[in-house]
């Protein structure tokens, strides 16, 4: 069914979006993947296909979501938006904004991606109960057999730097387990009261700080939304609406055992939850409108265990600055030097071989070696003589 809807304008190349697989009734497990999906649905409905991909190594940049269109590939929500915007038959979501508002939109999208994304990562990866009850089982179910043992913890530790810098990483280095009351001769031995007070106080303080951050972020966007259905009072959702709603959707659709951020959102900011519903009903009134999903199977999961260095993309390949005359001149000089070096070394090697044989040939010739001997044998004897001389 998806192929019948593909526009003939796109030709044989189709836009293929690879996202994290869905979990339960969620569209996808990752907020940027949901945002990319919504964006494509709003701009090029029916002209793209979706693949569920749980292996970030398939992506040329190592990150999901990524988009393949013929030979082009882009990854990350920002780059996908810039790419799709330039496609010929794409609807422009931000058409009603003037230049200042478009500039503000760029800043706000960056703010949502960084601040709201941090909060979601904190919920999924930092809070221990959520990690063991929701995130880890979900990741394990998406990955094949060798990878499901070690990749989830690697994914978790990859978020550590960023969350630590944002003071949202509250994972204890060593997990303390509650001691089982030891049994001595069938009777429970009384153990001294464990000193939990400082721990409880510290974790309560940390949670308070997280709640403060959550409120600071949601206050800003609640004020921006005010009473309109979408941000900036537009009639249709803009890029900012798409990315904000995607994050809210991921938060509200997963059942978290430790709903720190979700409870604040649902109790104090019902307008933001309503905004998410409005965006989804505008983009996807019916789930069946989504193109059919192409399920990629892990043909050989063992192959990805081999460490293969990713070739870094050429730094100046896609830049328009590579045409500047200064850079061209410098490059040409380097090319000259490089080929000059190779040529000179080849010449020197050839000259050495040539002259070395001649120089040693001359004394051999004077010793009365018959001139009719084939040159190969002569050279052979010359080589031995050479070795003898060197020693």
């Amino acid at each position, binding site marked *: 069914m998806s192929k019948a809807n593909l526009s003939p304008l796109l030709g044989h190349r189709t836009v293929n979006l690879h996202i994290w697989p869905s979990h339960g009734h969620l569209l996808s497990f990752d907020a940027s993947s949901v945002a990319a999906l919504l964006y494509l649905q709003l701009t090029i409905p029916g002209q793209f296909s979706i693949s569920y991909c749980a292996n*970030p190594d398939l992506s040329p940049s*190592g990150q999901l979501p990524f988009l393949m269109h013929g030979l082009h590939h882009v990854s990350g929500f920002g780059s996908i938006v810039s790419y799709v915007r330039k496609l010929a038959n794409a609807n422009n979501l931000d058409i009603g904004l003037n230049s200042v508002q478009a500039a503000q939109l760029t800043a706000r999208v960056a703010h949502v*991606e960084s601040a709201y994304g941090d909060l979601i990562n904190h919920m999924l990866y930092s809070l221990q109960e959520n990690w063991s009850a929701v995130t880890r089982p979900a990741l394990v179910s998406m990955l094949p057999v060798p990878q499901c043992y070690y990749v989830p913890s690697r994914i978790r530790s990859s978020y550590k730097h960023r969350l630590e810098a944002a003071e949202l990483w509250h994972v204890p280095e060593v997990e303390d387990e509650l001691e089982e009351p030891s049994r001595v001769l069938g009777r429970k031995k009384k153990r001294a009261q464990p000193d939990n007070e400082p721990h409880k106080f510290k974790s309560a303080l940390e949670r308070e700080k997280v709640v403060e951050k959550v409120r600071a972020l949601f206050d800003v966007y609640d004020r921006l939304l005010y009473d309109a259905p979408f941000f900036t009072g537009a009639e249709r959702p803009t890029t900012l609406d798409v990315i904000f709603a995607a994050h809210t959707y991921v938060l509200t659709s997963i059942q978290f055992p430790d709903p720190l951020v979700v409870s604040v959102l649902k109790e104090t900011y019902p307008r933001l939850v309503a905004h998410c519903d409005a965006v989804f009903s505008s983009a996807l009134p019916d789930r069946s409108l989504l193109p059919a999903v192409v399920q990629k199977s892990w043909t050989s999961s063992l192959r990805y265990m081999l*460490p*293969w260095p990713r070739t870094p993309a050429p*730094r100046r390949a896609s*830049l328009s600055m590579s045409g500047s005359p200064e850079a061209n001149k410098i490059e040409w000089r380097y090319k000259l030097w490089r080929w000059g070096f190779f040529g000179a070394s080849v010449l020197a090697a050839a000259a050495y071989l040539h002259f070395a044989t001649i120089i040693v040939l001359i004394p051999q010739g004077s010793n009365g070696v018959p001139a009719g001997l084939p040159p190969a044998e002569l050279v052979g004897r010359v080589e031995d003589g050479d070795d003898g001389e060197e020693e």
Partner: protein
Amino acid sequence: MSRALGISLPAPLRHFFSLFPLYTHPEIESPDKARPLTSPTLWIHVPWSPDADVLSSDVECLKWQAYLALRGLSDIAVRWDIAVDGALDARLPNLHVLLKTLPGASDEVKAQDDGEGELLPAHLIPEWVDGQVGALDELEGYVDEAARDESRAWVALLEGNVHAALVLNQPSPSSLLSLLSPYQHKARPLEAVLPHPPAPLFGISSLLPPYGTHVDVDAIELQYRDAIASLSERLGTDKWFLGSSSPTALDALVFAYLHCILHSKDHTLRFEVTRRVNLVAWERRVQSQVRSGFRLVPVLPSS
């Protein structure tokens, strides 16, 4: 006291202990003596041209320098001979202030100031400045609440996209000596700046433990270009960002990033900003204002 307790050292032991110390070395004269503090001093990273400039080459330090100058403070001394490991939390900048200017100090503490002063980390600088020139109102100097909310978004844009591009183009240490030296300036790693963690160098499912980062350079440069374009668009012809009537913290941050970009060695980074005349003119105007607030600490000859 030992008599009151009824316990005392036995005489042979006391005699034995009185033999020590056996030899006391004479006091060593050190040329590094801490001078008593006379004015607030900011510890920063070394500027690009130490003889001619007081503006630091590091974005964080420059950001706080601009904040201090734009809030109206002047005659602040600067020094850059302190190694990074000597700073609080191993992060410069730090502000060395006189005890009597601390807002929270009690009167006895202020009275016994002997020139040692107090060292403040960067996040306590705004509080100190409030104590000096008066606290800002709730709007923090912005025109209205909407502008204040918008400033948060601009801060996130600068500290994310623009900072990532700067970090990527940091010049790597070239000489062997600088590689071996233990006092290296470690900037914030790229993983802390990007919103999505970059993939490890050999892929996340490989047998090797995750090492290094495989950075998507094209995506970062694209976002950087969008960021600079929107920054220039928003500034327009205003005197201060977001139409404020007086400089705000956002102006200090923007100035720090623009100044560092204009002094970076990478052509593409610089070109994006030099193409936008209003940004260059704004940065030049703010530069003179920021520079006027600082002076160099004169180095006394060691006696």
